[in-house]
C-alpha cells in the first residue's frame, strides 16, 4: 500500500440549483483520509454525505475546491482501478446476473474474468448469495441486492473504498457479520475506506475516525478518533468506552 491511495478533500463546496430550492450541499468541506485509514461518515439525512462520495468518485464536480485520490484527479484514479464503490442504491444492472453484476468492475477495467473466478465465488459466499449467482436482480430481495452491490465493490480489491450505507437494508445479525467481514478485508487489503453509515455502533466498530457532518449547509461538525485496537471483536460493543463514544457521537449529531 503506497501513499498514492489517500483521499484529500480540500475546501470543497457544492451548490445545487434545484427546482425545489437552492441547496448548499457542501460548504467549504475539507477532509483528509490518509492511505489505509478507515473513516466513517455520519450525519443527518440530506447533509451531503452521498454528494461528497459522488464528488470523490468524479461523478459530480465541486463548485469550488479540489479533490485528490492518491494525488490524482478522481476520474484518473478511478481509471487506474484504485477505487471501489457501493452506492446507497444497489444500482445493479437489471440484465446482468448477480455474478455478472459483481464482475462489472472487471469488465470496466479490462481485467480478465478468469483470474477473478475464485475471488467472485468467495465474495458471493461471504455476502450469503450462494445459489443465486445466476439470478437476475429482479429476482432478489432488497437486502440481497445490496449484498451483491457490496461484493461488487470489493471484487477489484480496491485501494480506496467508498461505501454509501452499504448495510442499510440488512438485518442486524447479517449486518454485524458483514461488519466483521469488512474489517477483515480492510485489514488484509489496507484499503483507504470511507464509509457512510447511519449506524453509530457500526461506525465505532469499524472506523479509525468518525466524521460527524451537519446539514444546511453540509459541513463537518466534529471528528472523533476511535482508539480501539484491531482486530476488533464483538466484545467491544459492551465496552464502556464504546458507550461513551456512542454518546459523544450521538451528541455531536444532535447538536446540529
Amino acid at each position, binding site marked *: 500500500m503506497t501513499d498514492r491511495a489517500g483521499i484529500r478533500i480540500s475546501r470543497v463546496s457544492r451548490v*445545487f*440549483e*434545484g*427546482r425545489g430550492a437552492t441547496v448548499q450541499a457542501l460548504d467549504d468541506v475539507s477532509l483528509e483520509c490518509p492511505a489505509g485509514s478507515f473513516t466513517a461518515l455520519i450525519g443527518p439525512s440530506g447533509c451531503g454525505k452521498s454528494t461528497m462520495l459522488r464528488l470523490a*468518485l*468524479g*461523478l459530480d464536480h465541486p463548485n469550488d475546491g479540489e479533490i485528490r485520490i492518491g494525488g490524482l484527479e478522481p*476520474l*484518473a*484514479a*478511478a*481509471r*487506474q*482501478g484504485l*477505487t471501489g*464503490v457501493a*452506492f446507497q*442504491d*444497489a*444500482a*445493479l*444492472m*437489471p*440484465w446482468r446476473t448477480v455474478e455478472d453484476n459483481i464482475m*462489472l*468492475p472487471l*469488465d*470496466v*477495467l479490462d481485467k480478465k474474468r478468469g483470474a477473478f473466478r475464485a475471488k467472485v465465488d468467495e465474495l458471493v459466499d461471504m455476502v450469503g448469495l450462494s445459489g443465486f449467482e445466476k439470478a*437476475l*436482480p*429482479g429476482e432478489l430481495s432488497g437486502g440481497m*441486492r445490496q449484498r451483491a452491490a457490496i461484493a*461488487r465493490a470489493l471484487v*477489484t480489491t480496491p485501494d480506496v473504498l467508498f461505501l454509501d450505507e452499504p448495510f442499510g437494508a440488512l438485518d442486524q445479525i447479517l449486518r454485524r457479520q458483514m461488519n466483521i467481514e469488512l474489517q477483515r478485508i480492510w485489514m488484509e487489503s489496507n484499503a483507504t475506506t470511507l464509509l457512510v453509515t447511519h449506524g453509530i455502533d457500526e461506525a465505532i466498530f469499524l472506523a479509525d475516525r468518525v466524521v460527524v457532518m451537519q446539514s444546511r449547509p453540509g459541513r463537518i461538525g466534529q471528528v472523533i478518533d476511535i482508539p480501539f485496537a484491531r482486530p476488533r471483536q464483538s466484545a467491544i460493543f459492551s465496552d464502556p468506552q464504546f458507550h461513551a463514544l456512542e454518546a459523544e457521537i450521538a451528541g455531536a449529531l444532535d447538536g446540529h
Partner: protein
Amino acid sequence: MAGQGRLGTLRNWGILLVLWEIVGRLRLVADGALPAPSAILQRLWIDWSDYPPHIWATIEGASIGFLIGNALAIAAGILFVLFPLTGRLARGINIALFALPPIALSPILVITFSGMTPRIILAAIGCYFITMSATVTGLSQTDRRAIDIVRAYGGNRWKVLRLAQLRSALPSILSGLRIAAPNAVLGAILAEFGGGGRFGLGVYLIGSLGRGEPDRLWGIGLAATLIAGLAYGLFSLIAARLTGASRAVTMPAAAPSEARAKGFLRETMIVLASIALPFLFWWVLLYAMGTPAMIAKTPPALFEYLFLSPQSATNLGKLAAALAQTLPMTIIGMAVGLAFAFALAIGSVLYPVIVRAFMPVALVTQTMPLVALTPLLVLMLGRGHSVILWITVSVTFFPAFVTMAQGLSLVSRAALDVPRAYGAGPLKQLRLVTIPASLPYVFASTRLAVPRALLGVMIAEWLATGKGLGNLLNQSRGYLDYGMIWAVAVVSVLLSVVFYQLVVLIENRVLSKRGMSPAQ
C-alpha cells in the same frame, strides 16, 4: 399466461380471417374489390411458379439494404449520443433522408446507379432514420445508475456505451429494426418500380397492376408482408425476451440536469447549420456523382428556378397553390395518425391479445405498395378527404405505434406497483404512471410520425385526389420539370424539418420540466 396469450392471438387471427373471408365472399367491400383470403390463396397457388425469382430478388435488395441501412443507423445513433452536437447538426440531413418522397428519389437513383444498387439504397434509406432514432432514444434513456457505476470505475464514454447503454438500448433498437423490416421491403419494391431489373415483387406488381385482378395484387402484397413479417417476428421475439431483464428493478431517481443558460446565438447557429447542411450535402453529392445539370438542380439552380427565371412567378404560384392544398391535410393527418398510434400503443397494454392479432394487418399496410391498395381504398372511400386521411394514417401510425408500445413496456415494475397497491385499474396505471414514465418515447414516436404524415398526404394526392404537392410532383416528372421536382422535394423536407423542430421544442419544454432527458 403467455401460452394463453398466444392462443388468444391465434384465435383472434382466426376470427379476423373468417371475417375477411365472409366479407370477400359476399363482396361486401367495394363490390368485391377486396378479395377473400381463399381467393387470394387460390390465385397464389395458380401463380406460384412466377413467384420465386421475384421473391428472391426482393429479399436480396431488401436484406442488403436492411443490413447496410441499419448498420449505418446504429453507428450514427451512437455517434449522435456520444457527440450530441453531431446529432443536432445532422438533423436536417436525417430528416431529409426520411422525408424525401421515394417517388422523387427513385428516378434519380435509377439513372445514377444500376442493377441492385437503387433497391439497396432505397431499402437502406427506409431503415436509416427509424433505427437511428430508436438507437438514440434507447441510448439516451439508459438508467443513470447503470452509467454511474461504470463511470465510477473510470469507464470512459466508450465503456459506458458498451457496458450500460447498448444493452439497455437493445429493446429500443430492436423495435427500430421491427419497423425497419417492412420499410426495407417496401423500399426495395418501390425501387423496383424504377425498372432496370426484370425480377422483384415490385416489377411483378407493376405488370399485374394493369390486369384488374385484386386477388393477384393481394397475393403479391401478402408475399411482401410475409418477408417483412418474418423479420418483424424474429425481432419481436428477441425483444420480448430481452425486455423483461431490461426494465429497472427499482425506480431510478436520476438527478435532473441543472438549468443551464444556453447561448441563444449558438442555438440559432446550430439550427441554421442543420438546415444548411442538407443543401450542402446535396450540392456536393451532385457534384461528386456528376449528375447532369438538367436533372440535378443544385441549390443555386433551384433558386434561379424559383426566383430569378421568367417562369419563376408561375412556378412559385403552382408550388404555393399545391402547398395550400397539402398543408391542412398534413396537420390533420398527423393528429389522426398519432392518435391512432397512441390508441394502439395503449391497446397493446390494455388488450395485448387484440393488438397482437392486429399486427399482421398493420404489417400489410406497411408493405403493400399503395399503388396497388389505393384503387381499393378509392372504391371504399371515394377520392375526398377520407381517403387522404386513411392513407396518411396508414403511412404514419406504424413507427409511432411500435416506438410508443416499446416505451410503455419498459416502465419498471416498481413504478407500477405504487398505483396498483392503491387499487388502480389498468387505465389509471396508464394515466398516472405508464404514460408519464414513457413520455420520452411518446415524443420520439411523434418525431417519427411528423415527417411521415406529409409523405402520406403526398402519396394520397398523387394516387387518389390529383391535388396538392403529391400531384404536382408526379406531374412534373412527366414534364421532365426537374426544377419543380426538386422544389417540391425541398419544400417537403423543409416542412418536415419545421414540424420536427416544433416537436423538439415542445419535447424539451415538457421533459425538462419533469426532469427527464429528451431522446434526441
